[in-house]
């Protein structure tokens, strides 16, 4: 809506018209009062003339004329007054609507008057009016008998009315703009005060925050001490009741503080415990904490955040490594399949040439070895990356020994070794994944077959030591073991430096990773030629 008529000229005109109407209304009111005082509504024209006209008076003709006018106007003055009232109200409303508007624009355009804080304006108009009225009354006789005083009083009234009208317009414009309360001196002062208070609070907070927690605690204790002194000194005046109330209030406040600290502490502890348990997604809500509690909570959150990033990165790189190895092994397996197949075919061809048979045997043996190496490599990388799934179930350690013994008895005998199994009378159980555990035993027993001195015994025993089930596999090495147990556990390290026999040095590393995946440990001990592998799993 464009305000078509909101021009300064229209506004001025309306303003003046409004003032005029108001003057007319006031005039009518005074007129009616004067007429009724003069008895114009009780008497006829003749009676009025008889009462007021003295023919001796040289101005009597004027009086007659005035009486004539009074009689003519005595009823129509009501009509004039009513019309003026309606006009004044209409003009007032128009002014209110126009105030703050400008032709051809939608928004509110407050005038210069509206820049002044409203309460200041109000006070100015109020005091100005009073001042004017006071001055007028001081200057003039207060009886209002003579025409000059009346004229001055009327003028003062008009001026005051104009001021009031202006104030109303400003009021309307401010309401439209929504700045009525904002643009007041009181609001400004309050705002300033609030700002100052906030700055002070911030300063105190910043200061307290830099203090170590011990100093904060001391500060609080000192405040408590001072309050106690104050209360105790109050006791001297014998106001027991006031003393009790004060102590109660302080105790309640103190209790609330302790309660708050306790709740927040427990929340912090819960968060820290979740972190310790590896739940890095746990988020500590620090919005209700203060000071050191909050700082600590935020520290915990950032630890969780940092750690989850690091863990994610590590997992990703491990997964990528494993994926790479899996893919490479796929690509290696296909040509290897052909090599194994055709080596077998050559071997099956009838030939008298002993050399070809021998060479073909080497081909077949070495391709089989390559096959195992590829499989072990994939498994070792997966086991150490922890991407193998482990399904733990309660298992009998003695059954492991019996089954492993059964599987390997013949093979050991073939290698000239005797297997001796020792199991305790006591029965225990451990948590293990049969498939993964088989890899551990398979690798350890295979090692015994490969590296033990022919004609010796291989010992496999089970003991319960404390809350651990300990499985030991012992054999006498054929080659001297001039290598440390730790080195043996490394990937691609073998007891015999010649590297001529089968094996790839991954077996022990895989066995160790597999044992650890199931929550157990694999330890190697070397004592001269005695090789000892110790598996231990917690009993359930």
């Amino acid at each position: 809506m464009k305000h078509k008529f909101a021009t300064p000229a229209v506004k001025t005109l309306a303003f003046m018209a409004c003032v005029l109407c108001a003057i007319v209304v006031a005039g009518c009111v005074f007129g009616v009062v004067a007429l009724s005082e003069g008895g114009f509504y009780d008497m006829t024209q003749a009676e009025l003339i008889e009462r007021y006209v003295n023919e001796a008076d040289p101005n009597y003709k004027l009086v007659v004329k005035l009486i004539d006018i009074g009689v003519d106007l005595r009823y129509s003055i009501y009509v004039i007054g009513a019309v003026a009232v309606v006009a004044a109200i209409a003009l007032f409303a128009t002014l209110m609507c126009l105030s703050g508007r400008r032709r051809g624009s939608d928004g509110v355009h407050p005038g210069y008057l509206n820049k002044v804080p409203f309460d200041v304006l109000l006070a100015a108009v109020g005091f100005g009016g009073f001042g004017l009225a006071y001055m007028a009354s001081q200057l003039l006789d207060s009886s209002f008998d003579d025409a000059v005083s009346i004229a001055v009083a009327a003028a003062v009234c008009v001026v005051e009315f104009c001021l009031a009208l202006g104030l109303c317009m400003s009021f309307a414009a401010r309401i439209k703009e929504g700045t009525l309360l904002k643009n007041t001196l009181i609001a400004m002062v309050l705002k300033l005060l609030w700002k100052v208070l906030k700055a002070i609070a911030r300063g105190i907070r910043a200061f307290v925050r830099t203090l170590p927690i011990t100093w904060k605690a001391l500060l609080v204790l000192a405040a408590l001490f001072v309050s106690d002194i104050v209360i105790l000194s109050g006791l001297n005046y014998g106001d027991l009741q006031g003393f009790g109330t004060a102590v109660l209030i302080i105790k309640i406040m103190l209790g609330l503080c302790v309660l708050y600290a306790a709740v927040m502490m427990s929340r912090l502890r819960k968060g820290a415990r979740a972190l310790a348990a590896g739940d890095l997604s746990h988020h500590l809500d620090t919005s209700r904490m203060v000071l050191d509690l909050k700082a600590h909570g935020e520290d915990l959150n950032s630890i969780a955040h940092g750690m989850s990033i690091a863990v994610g990165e590590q997992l990703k790189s491990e997964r990528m490594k494993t994926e790479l190895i899996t893919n490479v092994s796929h690509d290696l397996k296909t040509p290897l399949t052909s090599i194994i197949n055709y080596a077998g075919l050559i071997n099956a061809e009838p030939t008298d040439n002993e050399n070809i048979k021998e060479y073909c045997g080497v081909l077949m043996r070495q391709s089989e070895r390559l096959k195992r190496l590829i499989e072990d490599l994939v498994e070792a990388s997966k086991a150490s990356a922890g991407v193998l799934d482990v399904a733990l179930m309660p298992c009998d350690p003695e059954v492991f020994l019996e089954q492993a013994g059964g599987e390997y008895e013949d093979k050991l005998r073939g290698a000239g070794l005797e297997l001796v199994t020792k199991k305790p009378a006591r029965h225990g159980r451990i948590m293990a994944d049969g498939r993964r555990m088989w890899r551990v035993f398979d690798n350890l027993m295979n090692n015994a077959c490969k590296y033990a001195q022919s004609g010796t015994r291989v010992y496999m025993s089970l003991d319960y030591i404390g809350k651990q089930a300990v499985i030991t596999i012992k054999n006498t090495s054929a080659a001297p073991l001039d290598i440390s147990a730790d080195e043996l556990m490394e990937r691609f390290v073998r007891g015999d430096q010649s590297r001529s026999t089968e094996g790839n040095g991954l077996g022990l590393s895989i066995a160790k990773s597999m044992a650890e995946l199931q929550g157990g440990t694999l330890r190697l001990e070397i004592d001269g030629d005695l090789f000892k592998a110790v598996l231990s799993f917690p009993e359930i």
Partner: protein
Amino acid sequence: MANILICDDEKDIVRALKIYLTDPDYNFFEAYNGKEALEIVKREDIHLILLDVMMPVMDGITAMEEIRKISNAPIIILSAKSEDADKILGLNVGADDYVTKPFSPMEVVARVRSQLRRYMRLGAGAPAEGSIVVGGLELSDATKRVTLDGEEVPLTPKEFEILKLLMRSPGKVFSPKEIYTEVWKETPYDLDSNTVAVHIRHIREKIETDPAQPRCLKVVFGQGYKIEGGRK
């Protein structure tokens, strides 16, 4: 006469398999991707399929899904993918056996024979009265004979008793001690001997194509042994 379809994108492997499987009773078809294999299965009466997984145009799994809509012939997957998940996927989609590359040729030959025997024998007559059948194994208590896909397996009396015990409850895991008490009855259980485990391994060597990866008589390490029927 059996029609065997060999499908692998490596021509060398197809050729080697053909040479190993050479038999006057076998007739071979060759395909170098899943699509070709599917077309041959549609056209010919195929009795057994050897199928690679990673192949161009159409991979083995997709081809197998299509083949299973029209044929019930045994499918043996030959794949370089050796993850458990790959095996499970292959077997679930409809494979009868899964051999990982690099395979030993003789093992593939043995598996082909076993699958063919079972497929050709299917519906050849109900098992004899009083005999237990689990997968390709049939055990007759009356004649004390065990046959695997129709071929007799020579077993010692103890081995027979162990197999009978396991086959009576297929899928149930028997601990070595349980087996010992059932089979050896009077003789007390010797804690430090591995008698049962040794017997089980001997049985496995007789009835399994690859005793290190048994399909039928399974080792549940740390618990015991069980017989599984396998897939129909």
